[in-house]
């Protein structure tokens, strides 16, 4: 019954304590939040936890959400902030087990995909691993702008930074990705000829 209601109506009902309306919003925006969180953290228990926490924070802020931004951008912003916090915690936790003799060594990121069974899957895994190798700030821009196809403006709103900063971070991130992927292009794992 609530399936076809617009966001504004569901929000109003959720504010009045209608749990079904809030649940409908969770179901409607699960994909958006999942794309952000899994894009940033990879698939796993902490991604699920951050996804839940995103909606819990939103639930707590229902009265404050004034629809100045779209619900999508608002949820992406919460999800991104929580993902960055989780990355920070994960990094801090892993650093405890990394030798202090080698301060520049970065802790390994958890694997995000199973072994590839086709060339296409292998290409996808290589590119996703390269994205996971970016710094959190650069990764966030790539995930939102390139993988989720948010506009530069939406990306800026979601990250709380100016549009110019989005563009400069994106430019640096693309350069990094290019150099990370170059060996795979040379050995033929990533075919760059026009496949269309």
């Amino acid at each position: 019954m609530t399936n076809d209601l617009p966001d504004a109506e569901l929000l109003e009902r959720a504010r009045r304590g209608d749990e079904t309306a809030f649940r409908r919003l969770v179901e409607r925006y699960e994909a958006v939040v999942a794309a952000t969180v899994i894009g940033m953290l990879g698939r796993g228990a902490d991604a699920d936890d951050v996804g839940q926490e995103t909606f819990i924070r939103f639930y707590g802020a229902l009265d404050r959400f004034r629809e100045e931004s779209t619900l999508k951008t608002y949820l992406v912003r919460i999800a991104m902030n929580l993902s960055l916090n989780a990355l920070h915690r994960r990094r801090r936790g892993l650093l405890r087990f990394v030798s202090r003799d080698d301060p520049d060594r970065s802790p390994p990121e958890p694997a995000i995909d199973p072994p590839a069974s086709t060339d296409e899957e292998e290409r996808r895994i290589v590119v996703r691993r390269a994205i996971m190798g970016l710094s959190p700030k650069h990764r966030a821009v790539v995930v939102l702008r390139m993988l989720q196809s948010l506009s530069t403006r939406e990306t800026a709103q979601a990250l709380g930074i100016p549009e110019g900063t989005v563009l400069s971070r994106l430019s640096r991130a693309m350069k990094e990705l290019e150099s990370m992927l170059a060996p795979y292009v040379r050995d033929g794992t990533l075919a760059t000829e026009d496949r269309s």
Partner: protein
Amino acid sequence: MRPDELERLLADAALTPAERRFDPGFADRVMQRAGARAAKPGGEHDVLSSTLARQARRMLPAVAAASLAVSAWNWWSVRDRADSALAAVLGLEGVSLSTALSSSSIVDAEELP
């Protein structure tokens, strides 16, 4: 690698619609957690503290403006009689023997012989 080739590789690496999902039962887990948090006594405390913080943030500009106005008024009123700029802003007049013994400073005191 050309920029458009890299963009295409990234587009191909985006999560598929099937991958843009948490584990089954995600909405149930969210609703359960939301219910548990609302039922927790600390939940009310969170609401109270966040409400107080929100109110404080809302009032901050007005309080800052009022403080500035009072400071400006103090400085304007006692700038000639204060020992320092800080004292003037705080509205503290400089005290000397003559000002202490002036008639305006002594109320209901008997006249000195």
